[in-house]
């Protein structure tokens, strides 16, 4: 890459850090999964072996962030933003290696991805997965076969769904006879598996204690009534939040792309298909969170870059038919999505993308970049909600809880019991009542997951439960510990509506003991009455 291109890429990386950093400061993407990532990294310091050999802990990430974890959630978030920002130069380097004319374009797609910005700021593992996939793409393009395999193998323990990438890579390696890739793919599972076998004293420990439950906990009201079916508006909003220039994808031609990019788009197709179907079958606890789709970003950015290279008027550029069909397909989906209740923004995206391609086809490449740049720049501002990572989306009652608690300075110092995983973090940020300890009501399915995925025979389960005592969304209260006699009169219950709550607070036991102060929509604030058992 030229010095000028590097300068642009560095500027884009800085832009990413700026956008995500601003979000870290104002907490708009505060997310319980991000708090969990930090918690798992903290556990490495408290119980190193028990955590590293708990597959659910995403060991590679837990170890990566362990040094910064003791400095607190805020410091962790900043470290996470910096790691997530690495995806920008990695994708640019890959593009340069694969012969893209303007490597800064895919870098811009990554840097200005609304979902990547949100996931980076929130501390979500999905942003780390983007960096991992970008690293695989770079080493693949540089023909570092062993490294490619090793990184792809490790990624399965970062996000289990990235097994799809490992599978695509394995098939490609077998077809192209690249045994070093296959060797690399097996390296981490082998080393980790053998070390784990010594720790667990169990040869097939990976199967007995997998990274995720194969099926949801029995009797869990959330999953029992869960019939997830992706609707078009949700999928469209998710796609636009990954990047609005996804509208150009229909123009992509396999013949103009490198073999790595072709395999990458096969991964994108299989990955998206699997994540839309898995929730229907309730496999591996997948729901319809759009953020699961984020790891497609690096290969999507490379594909869009190829499209832009081919949208000119010169011979060999994309044919009028391909332009028409590719753009029309998106326009039809955008219109259908709007009619189904989605936002009209998808039509604006389709219009701007088509305008850019038209200007390119008219031989006006400089003008064509204007609508393209507009789309990219608007992304983080307009399309972020499609990621459904924002605090106001997944915890809509959190701010109201804090507001109501602040109205009662007389409650300061009283213990607070809550099932809202972000309340303790809001208190840390100075939003709560002084002197009050936030006790987090560990939900039955959370405990079930931890106990099912850890080994009781070698002390791992006990060690982890002990380590969690030091902090788990606040001071944890295990389901069997939440008894009326253990809760003092006057204690404040701040409860978000959650169908699982009845499993740890049976209403027939607790309702007579609680005086509801705020029955509000979506949440209840109540005080423990005097008396009772």
């Amino acid at each position: 890459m030229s010095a000028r291109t590097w300068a642009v890429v560095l500027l884009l990386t800085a832009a990413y850090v700026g956008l995500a950093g601003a979000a870290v400061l104002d907490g708009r993407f505060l997310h319980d999964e991000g708090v969990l990532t930090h918690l798992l990294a903290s556990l490495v310091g408290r119980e190193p072996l028990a955590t590293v050999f708990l597959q659910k802990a995403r060991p590679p990430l837990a170890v990566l962030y362990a040094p910064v974890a003791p400095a607190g959630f805020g410091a962790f978030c900043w470290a996470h933003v910096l790691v997530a920002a690495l995806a920008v130069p990695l994708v640019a380097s890959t593009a340069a290696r694969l012969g893209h004319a303007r490597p800064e374009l895919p870098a811009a797609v990554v840097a200005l991805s609304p979902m990547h910005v949100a996931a980076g700021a929130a501390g979500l593992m999905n942003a780390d997965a983007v960096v991992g996939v970008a690293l695989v793409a770079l080493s693949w393009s540089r023909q570092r076969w062993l490294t490619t395999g090793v990184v792809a193998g490790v990624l399965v323990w970062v996000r289990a769904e990235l097994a799809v990438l490992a599978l695509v890579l394995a098939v490609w390696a077998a077809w192209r006879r690249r045994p070093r890739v296959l060797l690399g793919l097996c390296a981490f599972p082998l080393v980790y598996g053998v070390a784990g076998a010594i720790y667990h004293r169990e040869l097939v420990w990976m199967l007995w204690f997998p990274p995720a439950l194969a099926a949801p906990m029995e009797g869990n009201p959330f999953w029992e009534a869960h019939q997830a079916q992706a609707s078009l508006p949700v999928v469209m909003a998710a796609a636009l939040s990954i990047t609005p220039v996804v509208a150009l994808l229909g123009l992509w031609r396999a013949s103009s792309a490198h073999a790595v990019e072709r395999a990458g788009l096969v991964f994108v197709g299989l990955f998206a298909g699997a994540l839309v179907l898995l929730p229907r079958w309730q496999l591996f606890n997948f729901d319809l969170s759009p953020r699961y789709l984020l790891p497609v970003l690096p290969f999507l950015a490379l594909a869009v870059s190829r499209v832009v290279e081919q949208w000119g008027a010169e011979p060999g550029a994309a044919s009028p038919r391909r332009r028409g069909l590719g753009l029309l397909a998106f326009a039809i989906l955008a219109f259908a999505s709007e009619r189904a209740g989605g936002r009209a923004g998808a039509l604006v995206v389709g219009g701007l993308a088509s305008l850019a391609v038209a200007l390119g086809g008219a031989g006006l490449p400089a003008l064509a970049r204007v609508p393209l740049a507009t789309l990219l720049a608007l992304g983080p501002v307009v399309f972020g909600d499609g990621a459904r990572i924002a605090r106001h989306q997944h915890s809509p009652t959190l701010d109201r809880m804090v507001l109501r608690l602040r109205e009662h300075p007389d409650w300061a110092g009283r213990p607070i019991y809550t099932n809202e995983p972000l309340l303790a973090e809001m208190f840390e940020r100075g939003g709560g009542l002084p002197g009050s300890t936030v006790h987090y009501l560990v939900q039955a399915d959370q405990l079930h997951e931890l106990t099912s995925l850890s080994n009781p025979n070698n002390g791992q389960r006990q060690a982890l439960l002990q380590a969690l005592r030091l902090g788990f969304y606040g001071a944890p209260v295990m389901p069997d510990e939440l008894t009326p006699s253990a809760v003092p009169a006057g204690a404040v219950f701040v409860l978000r509506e959650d169908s699982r709550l009845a499993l740890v607070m049976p209403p027939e036991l607790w309702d007579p003991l609680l005086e509801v102060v705020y029955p509000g929509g979506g949440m209840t604030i109540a005080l423990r009455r005097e008396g009772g058992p």
Partner: protein
Amino acid sequence: MTSAWKSPRAWVPALVALSCALGLLVAWVDPVKRQAQAQDARAPRITDEGRALLGGLAEGERLMGWTVQALDGPRDGLLHIELGRDQVGFALMVATKGTRAESAPVETERYVIFYGHVHPPETILPDGTIRATTHALARRIRAQEATVVVPGM
């Protein structure tokens, strides 16, 4: 410049851009919200007192992970709360104690709460869901029933 637009590589995508603009026009002239408002006009209604008894519950709010899709009543002495999620729906009904023969899963001091109208018809609602939603509703009613009187119940 003009001749450049004669190339189908330029005017074909330009036509798609125009189609998108047309789609936006349709969205502006006939917004989906307006269709929803038309449906609202035919939608069931709940009286102010009925809503107050339910702690100000409103359509679109979440009750234990279920979305309140409609509120109605009192009708035949009942308040109806329709809940839905992921294409599954059911209704909670509130009646004054002593007015119904059937036994209710949850009672407050003055009211009883039933459930039913599950759809699709073959759906079996898990016990946890019924328990959680009926008790959440009961909590709301208990906070209001001493002060709110609902005519027609």
